């Protein structure tokens, strides 16, 4: 059955004042919110800017603020998003520079993500050799994921939701941020190289690292992939403090 969905969306172009516009979009009743966003583009305004790709929460591209909270609209059913409301409200993620409408500039975010040195690899993606991973290259015979330096399997899909949810990111974009620090934590666990580990911990211990976090834990709450960046930040702190205490007593 088709339903009419009222939606209020954030509109913006450089040089113009940001504002909201309202639309009605027709979608099947089992549609997700990304279908409604696409409907705005398809039925009303071909200039409407939004990002999307996989439609099943594996790319992290479509993240927005839905009804005032960070979500992946590709996995939120319209009926759930509309429950108890007159209309959907869709805005771009916070704490990123705006490009236009729902699109934000994620370049700086990805640069920070790369700081951990981990290459993003998933089973469906090409390897450095250009060939797709065979199942056996990622998993051991027992079915456990192999610990390899280039496996980045802490589940982060680089959606940027944690950046938008983090109140510290609202104060400064220099902060490494939850996702990059979770990546650094992951890298410290994976590497067997003491020097590399020390360099990663020094990165986390820097001015814009773990000590800028003020423990709101909104990253952990909002992360759609259960990465628990807040927990990763606290684990990094424990390790850094532990090393310093050992060093103080001449053991490090």
């Amino acid at each position, binding site marked *: 059955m088709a339903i009419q969905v009222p939606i209020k969306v954030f509109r913006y172009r*450089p040089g113009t004042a940001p504002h909201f516009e309202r639309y009605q979009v027709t979608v099947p009743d089992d549609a997700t919110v990304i279908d409604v966003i696409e409907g705005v583009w398809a039925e009303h305004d071909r200039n409407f800017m939004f990002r999307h790709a996989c439609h099943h929460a594996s790319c992290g591209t479509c993240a927005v603020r839905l009804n005032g909270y960070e979500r992946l609209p590709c996995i939120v059913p319209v009926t759930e998003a509309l429950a108890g409301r007159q209309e959907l409200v869709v805005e771009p993620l916070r704490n990123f520079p705006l490009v236009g409408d729902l699109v934000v500039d994620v370049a700086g975010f990805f640069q920070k993500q790369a700081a951990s040195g981990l290459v993003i690899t998933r089973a469906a993606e090409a390897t450095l050799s250009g060939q797709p991973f065979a199942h056996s290259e990622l998993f051991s015979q027992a079915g456990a994921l192999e610990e390899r330096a280039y496996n980045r399997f802490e589940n982060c899909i680089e959606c940027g939701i944690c950046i938008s949810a983090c109140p510290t990111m609202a104060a400064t974009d220099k902060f490494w941020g939850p996702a990059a620090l979770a990546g650094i934590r992951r890298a410290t666990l994976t590497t067997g190289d003491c020097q590399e580990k020390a360099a990663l911990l020094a990165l986390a211990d820097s001015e814009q690292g773990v000590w800028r976090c003020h423990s709101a834990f909104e990253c952990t709450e909002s992360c759609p992939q259960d990465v628990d960046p807040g927990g990763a930040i606290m684990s990094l702190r424990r390790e850094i403090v532990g090393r310093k205490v050992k060093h103080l007593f001449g053991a490090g």
Partner: protein
Amino acid sequence: MQAEKSTRPRQVWQWADVRRRKLGMWAYTLNRVSGLGLVLYLFIHLAVLRLLAGGPAAWDNFLALVRSPLFLVLDVVLLAGLLIHGLNGIRLTITGLGIGVPAHKTWFLALMAAALILSAAGAIAIFTM
């Protein structure tokens, strides 16, 4: 399209925006509000102490004022602010060192319950002694 680097001022008001946020954010904001309140109190306290320079008469008048019910209520607010900020600070120090992190919400609720009970006990003491 070219991305504008700074289209909006950084929205520091997010620090106080707890709409739809979870318990950790409430704890975060509560700590900021109580901290700012305590800093404000410090300056009021210093200004009041300055009355001592006005001689015994000025000080006696002030003492009469602070024994009024309104000021006693403010004493209770001050006590509650100290307890909330102090106990929340202990939680932040412990979890901030990576200890008991998964239970941070339980820590918060338990310590705020303690702050409430101690504030109530302090209020009774302030109004009856």
